[in-house]
């Protein structure tokens, strides 16, 4: 054991430059990888939260509004139309809850929200619309109801947050997968670097390896120093990357984003430890497999 450690140490010292290169590549690529994982978890949190809150708002025709939807120009939606719409909503199995809001209530809410702002004078009661607010059982299953209501007389507009949020999530998803893909390219580079380093080390230690085989050293003793060397480089890289990630989460999310934007749910330490675990695992796999492949021929006689 002592011999294994001293051989490993001398190997690391002999290749100090290349070992540092491996550590740095591992560090950067694993940091990116971890950041991608954190981003993915953050997007999922956002998605869960937003989709839960999403309501569909069905705005009804009002005399003041001349355009759009299935309105008769200059006419409010009739009571008959309202009943039909309400019926259609109630009967849809995807609907969890529906609330009617009259234009008076809508105006009151509007004034309330903007009571300290000049915006409150920008709309009059006449411009407000009666509306239905619909909450769905599964917020993802909105399309059926929306397309059904779109065709009904008296519906002026259906506001559906999915249309706004979906592109945002699409971009966030692309960003997160882009980060992960980039990190995988870098991780592959790190793995190749490790493989090459070990191949070079087996050349410089060729005579030693020859003697070891001749005197009957086991594969464990022959491979041990190489495996340990790669593993140490990989784990130091993973350690630095974990530090970077933990600092990043603390600085960007816990210290700034969470305080500035309290309304959102942000990733915390649980998500960070999951990412750190994945990083360490990847570091171990990526240091051991190239080493075994590179030094494999010394396992043979």
């Amino acid at each position, binding site marked *: 054991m*002592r*011999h294994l450690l001293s051989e490993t140490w001398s190997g690391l010292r002999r290749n100090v430059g290349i070992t540092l290169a491996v550590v740095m590549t591992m560090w950067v690529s694993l940091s990116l990888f971890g950041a991608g994982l954190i981003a993915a978890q953050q997007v999922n949190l956002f998605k869960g939260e937003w989709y839960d809150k999403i309501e569909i708002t069905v705005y009804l025709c009002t005399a003041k509004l001349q355009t759009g939807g299935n309105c008769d120009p200059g006419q409010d939606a009739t009571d008959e139309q309202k009943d039909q719409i309400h019926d259609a909503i109630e009967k849809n199995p995807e609907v969890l809850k529906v609330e009617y809001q009259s234009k008076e209530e809508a105006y009151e809410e509007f004034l309330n929200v903007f009571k300290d702002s000049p915006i409150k004078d920008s709309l009059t009661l006449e411009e407000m619309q009666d509306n239905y607010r619909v909450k769905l059982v599964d917020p993802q299953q909105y399309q059926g109801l929306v397309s059904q209501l779109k065709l009904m007389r008296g519906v002026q507009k259906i506001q559906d947050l999915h249309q706004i949020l979906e592109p945002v999530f699409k971009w966030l998803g692309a960003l997160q997968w882009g980060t992960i893909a980039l990190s995988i390219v870098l991780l592959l580079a790190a793995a190749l670097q490790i493989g090459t380093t070990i191949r070079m080390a087996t050349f410089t230690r060729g*005579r*030693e390896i*020859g*003697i*070891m*085989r*001749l*005197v*009957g*050293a*086991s*594969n464990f*003793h*022959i491979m041990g120093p190489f495996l340990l060397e790669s593993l140490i480089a990989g784990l130091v890289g993973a350690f630095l990357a974990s530090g970077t990630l933990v600092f990043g989460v603390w600085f960007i999310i816990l210290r700034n984003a969470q305080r500035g934007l309290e309304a959102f749910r942000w990733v915390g330490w649980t998500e960070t430890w999951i990412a750190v675990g994945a990083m360490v695992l990847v570091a171990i796999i990526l240091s051991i497999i190239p080493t075994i492949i590179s030094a494999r021929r010394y*396992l*043979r*006689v």
Partner: protein
Amino acid sequence: MIRFEEVSRIYDGQTRAALANVNIEIEKGEFVFLVGGSGSGKSTLMKLILREYRPTTGRIYVAGKDVAALPERKIPALRREIGMVSQDFRLLPGKTVFENVAFALQVIGKPRSLIRKVVPETLEMVGLADKMGRRPDELSGGEQQRVAVARAFVNHPKILLADEPTGNLDPETSVGIMKLLDRINRSETTVVMATHDWAMVDQMRKRVVELESGHVIRDQARGIYGARA
């Protein structure tokens, strides 16, 4: 201790056999000279004993083990029973004499306490007790070969193979190495030595196995080198 039964070995891509239908039996504690010209198959024979190669046909038993049938993971155990000395010493230049000999024990996982006891004993036996701290490049050729012998013998193998151990040494130094191998042989270790050194063979009067083009052409109990120039 070593038994060859109808052993042939043909290297990849060659038609001529490096060894052909070899039958030899070497008893425990025997001393055998292996003689023959370059390419006669001496080195191949040793590599087969070490299981660096498998025989193309035939069976080889070393220390009771069927070597050709030995699974890879058991090869290290076989080699721990065999010491090997070669013409070019194969010492590690960065290590001292002590470290070079200790290396052979370290890499098979022997404890440090044992190494500290056994290595000086072995170096004493080969006459290098006072040079344990030197590096190989500070030693003469004969001394380097003594280190190599110490390394091969430090684990007290049952068999010691020597492939032209005196090939790079002057006659006087060679005699010293020869005496050392003879002493090792007297401690019940089977010694197989390939050599071109006819004077030595003639003087020692040990068993001689002569190879030519892969065939055993002579196996003589108290032989001499044979036809000399």
